[in-house]
């Protein structure tokens, strides 16, 4: 896979089961975000193929975009745009409508409901840029779930997020998993999700390993990717915890 003329990811062959909770880890520049964006057809593989629930995102990007919801890293949003919380969530609905994407009366209750699910029901009209980092992440999650995706992709969702929001999000992800939604998360810190992770994918410009945490999180695998900055500890009830490479 190339991006900006550079080869960023190669030799990746795997099948991520849906539903499941899959976490992707790897150092900065490992190709994690590029991998995510390739799943929605935004970046085309220079060779090989990708299939999302049986649909080729390169040949049928519109079909895939109806199956998948994607939340980019919060740092990539423009806070110069004065936009209300309700408008952000409404995006999730209106993106599927025809131009000029006029919203109808029936859309408002859906937006309110999605905000209620993420405990943001009372922030309906607040400017997005006036929210805390955690509140913003909740709103972005509401925008994703309003699209009722079969697969939810989150890029660094816990960056600059308070513990309450983190716990709320994890609880909600668990509920989505129960509704047969596939969840793919890129994160530098797997600890908050340790008990939920079904598969871990380790990338470092190529696929290092993929499988259940117990199988993948071995000291020698992590050492090959992170050097001496990461280790694996055994614990209860979730036996495996990764420390190190936690970015502030």
């Amino acid at each position, binding site marked *: 896979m190339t991006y900006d003329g550079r080869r960023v990811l190669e030799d990746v062959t795997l099948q991520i089961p849906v539903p499941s909770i899959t976490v992707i880890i790897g150092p900065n520049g490992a190709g994690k975000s590029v991998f995510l964006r390739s799943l929605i057809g935004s970046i085309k593989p220079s060779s090989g193929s990708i299939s999302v629930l049986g649909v080729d995102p390169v040949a049928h990007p519109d079909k895939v975009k109806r199956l*998948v919801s994607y939340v980019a890293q919060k740092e990539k*949003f423009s806070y110069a745009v*004065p936009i209300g919380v309700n408008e952000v969530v409404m995006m999730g609905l209106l993106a599927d409508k025809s*131009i000029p994407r006029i919203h109808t009366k029936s859309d408002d209750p859906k937006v309110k409901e999605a905000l209620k699910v993420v405990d943001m029901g009372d922030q309906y009209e607040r400017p997005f840029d006036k929210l805390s980092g955690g509140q913003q992440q909740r709103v972005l999650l509401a925008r994703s779930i309003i699209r009722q995706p079969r697969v939810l992709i989150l890029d660094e969702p816990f960056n600059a997020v308070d513990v309450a929001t983190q716990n709320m999000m994890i609880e909600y992800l668990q509920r989505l998993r129960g509704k047969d939604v596939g969840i793919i998360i890129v994160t530098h810190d797997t600890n908050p999700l340790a008990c939920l992770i079904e598969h871990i994918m380790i990338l470092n410009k190529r696929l290092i390993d993929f499988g259940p945490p117990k199988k993948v999180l071995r000291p020698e695998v992590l050492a090959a990717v992170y050097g001496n900055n990461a280790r694996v500890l055994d614990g209860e009830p979730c036996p495996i915890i990764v420390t190190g490479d936690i970015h502030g």
Partner: protein
Amino acid sequence: MVDLLAPFLIRAYIAVVLSGVAASAGSVAVLRGVSYLPAEASHAALGGVSIAVFLGFVLGTEVDPFYFAVLFSAASAVLVAYAGGRLDKESLNAALGGVMAVSLSVYALLRGLVPANLKVVIDGYLVGDILLLTNKDLMQLGITVGVALFFELLFYREVMYICFDSEGAEAMGIKVKFYDYLMFFLMGLSGGLMSKIFGSLLVFALVLAPAAAARMFSAHVRTYLVNTMILTIVLGMVGLFASIYLDLPSSGMIAGLTSAAYVVSLLYFKAMKKG
């Protein structure tokens, strides 16, 4: 005593309203992180005008410079989008500088090759005069503004979504590249037609200053676009009347007012934040 209903003044009033509508492109430029684009495009218009005038001179016929001005400025904006690649700030700034350098080189070169009476036509786009607009000028401006406004309204949500979260918009199926090119085209178009009304040198003050000022007191994209239009029209009218009564150049007076509005807004909001 000046007759406020004199035809040249009525044309100027209409031009101020049209420039207000076109100034909304300045808001879009601020939202997209390319605030300088309309001003750059207006400078590129000089290259287009020079080509038109030079062609007319060589062919011995009259070539309307307006179409060359708006097309050249719109094309330069699209070229910036293309050269800017991923549209990150660094690439865009480099592309803006490069395209402006090419346009101004064309302007400087061709201006030197035409006789003095044609240099005046080119210079009319450098320092425009709103009081000298003709009915034909207004018709051309009206159509161009109408086209730009139509697309702005039609693709309002696409513009808002892409400016806010281009990756998310793309993931939801919005053709980000297409709309980005369209946005740049329309911003370039607006910059080009503003150069006809006020002159390229003052487009900065006419497009960027009201948009930057309006951003400080607008809580939503829709109100932001409307506030920019209203601010430009109100300041344009006040500046026009002031220039008439004080016998000062109209474009300069209007640009002075819009710049002052930006500075006052900035100081006010800085003071509010501290307080």
